[in-house]
């Protein structure tokens, strides 16, 4: 191992500096990766709102896990109570006497797990596929592109319906993966085109000339550039997962055991045709739950752009005095 001195140039791409012990490094890492981004994010009203909303849903999941609110069951309350009429049942009750708030809270952990699984699967596969195919090029690229083009040409929901009937998934994690089973293809393609514009940058070429291996180049040189895009798309994938899941439960084509927002929506809608506006609280509760979560996620993604935007970040270190607010850069129109 070659030690770095004043005159020598160290060609090693990773050098150990003995003067910084791990405690300092940990602290520095914390400030750089957690504290400063959090500070920047918190400065943005959109991120603030988004974060508050998402934390609210996490709290709802915790409430359910610790059993702080009653579980949903039939005839636990008077039938067809409107919202905000009886404070033991704030959101009212259903036609069979189920507490609507309990219905909503009961399904939160399920939905959150599913959303997380869907988002991680879709973006994870897309990043791997997109970076490798974009960076490697040549035959690897052709093969991967052909495969993902195939998956891209299968429309999501119909495939999920057929798979749902075939596999009958009940675990939220499996369900999340099935719902986004071919989501990676389209996302991988757009990540690939982003990588194509980075792969010939001089610093990537320098790494290549030094003989750094492909995985390391992708991880250290290419991926950091893509992180904002990837995170924003993680949120889009998560949103897609909720929308798709609720839609399919609403249609009654996915197998289900417990309760969740889609099923509640389904019952409320079918009863709503009979009861008219009297059942509106029952119909609105799951809708607000879905829309709220999606809205929180989108707001969070809008703010995330700022965390990764170097022009905004330099403001903290005082290097730049005039930083205009930058527009959110996105080509995603899903």
């Amino acid at each position, binding site marked *: 191992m070659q030690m770095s001195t004043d005159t020598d140039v160290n060609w090693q791409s990773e050098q150990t500096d003995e003067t910084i012990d791990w405690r300092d490094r940990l602290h520095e890492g914390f400030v750089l990766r957690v504290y400063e981004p959090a500070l920047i994010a918190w400065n943005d009203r959109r991120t603030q709102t988004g974060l508050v909303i998402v934390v609210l849903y996490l709290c709802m999941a915790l409430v359910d896990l610790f059993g702080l609110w009653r579980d949903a069951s039939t005839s636990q309350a008077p039938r067809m109570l409107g919202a905000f009429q009886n404070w033991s049942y704030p959101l009212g009750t259903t036609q069979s006497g189920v507490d609507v708030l309990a219905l909503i809270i009961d399904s939160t952990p399920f939905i959150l797990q599913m959303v997380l699984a869907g988002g991680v699967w879709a973006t994870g596969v897309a990043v791997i596929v997109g970076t490798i195919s974009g960076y490697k090029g040549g035959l690897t690229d052709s093969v991967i592109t052909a495969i993902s083009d*195939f998956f891209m040409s299968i429309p999501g929901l*119909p495939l999920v319906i057929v798979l749902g009937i075939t596999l009958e998934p009940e675990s939220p994690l499996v369900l999340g993966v099935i719902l986004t089973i071919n989501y990676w293809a389209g996302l991988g393609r*757009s990540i690939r085109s982003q990588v194509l514009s980075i792969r010939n940058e001089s610093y990537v070429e320098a790494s290549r000339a030094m003989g750094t291996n492909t995985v390391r180049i992708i991880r250290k040189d290419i991926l950091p550039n893509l992180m904002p895009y990837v995170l924003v798309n993680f949120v889009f994938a998560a949103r897609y997962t909720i929308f798709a899941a609720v839609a399919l439960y609403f249609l*009654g084509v996915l197998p289900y055991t417990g309760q969740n927002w889609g099923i509640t929506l389904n019952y409320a809608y079918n009863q709503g045709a009979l009861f008219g506006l009297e059942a509106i609280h029952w119909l609105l509760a799951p809708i607000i739950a879905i829309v709220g979560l999606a809205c929180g996620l989108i*707001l969070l993604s809008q703010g995330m752009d700022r965390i990764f935007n170097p022009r905004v970040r330099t403001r903290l270190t005082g290097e730049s005095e005039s930083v205009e607010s930058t527009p959110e850069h996105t080509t995603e129109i899903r």
Partner: protein
Amino acid sequence: MNYYLRRTIRIPATILGVATLTFGLIRLLPGGPFTQLRIQLRRRGMDAQEINARIEALQNIRPEKSLPEQYLDYLIGVVQLDLGQSISLNKPVIEVIGQALPWTVFIVVVSTLLMFVLGVLLGSLQAYWEGTTFDSVGSGLSILFMSIPYYIYAVAFLVVLAFSWGVFPTSAAADRSIEAGFTVAYAVSVLHHAALPIISFTIGGVGSTALSMRGNSIQVLGREFVEVARLRGLSDQRIATRYVAMNAILPMYTGLLLLVGFRLGGTVVLEEIFTYPGLGFYLIEGVNANDYPLMMGCFMVITIALVLAVYFADMTYGLIDPRISVGDADEY
């Protein structure tokens, strides 16, 4: 090999792949294909041979043949546009699909165009008046509209406008009492029936299109070539359309291509809610009635429609953005 030629060759390959997938999925369906029907027929006292003959007529699957032979039979059937017989509707699947496909294409094309045009207009106006109240209200509304899935609009419109107020019809693609044809009455009826599905499929998309159009336009507005165009004394209108709008729309074109896939898939939910007789509606009908030939036929045709749409977009992309190179990159 030429890119366009290669891309064209890939279409039959993709369709073959989809057909194979469909064939495999039919085999994987719970209890294998036609278990339900087999039980029903046996209960009616049919003997095994008769049941097999009946099932063979329903789909090109002969249970006693080997798997490769069944596969080959299935493919030949697909090429001959023979997708089997629908069990619940008692009609050839291809006939059902032939009637359903135009409605689905109509809804998807009209709503996607509307969404794109309205979104681009709104987004560029927001970018033009960046920082004003109009801009912030517009962005807020866009985010709100994006957070609401299209089927929620559908349910809301249906409950309020169709069921409660009776302003719009609750099902079907056209009034049954009016004869189909190129008459004004029929066209009005079709539009009246399609209005709610199209509107609910458009609103959410307008929000996200406007947001990305706004972001892209603001970026383009800051570029030097726009400044130069101003210095050259070009008219504002020319700058707005040729210089800013064109360059802002370009990156959204690939997104649009992906979007068509999502929207084509989304018709399943939309058409089921509005009881609109398109492909998606019959797909769900097939699922609910255990009518596998119908379900798989619809699945395959929706997929083929998407394959062709993506192909079309790929082919035109080079024309729209000449900077795109279609050649291969060097391998590292």
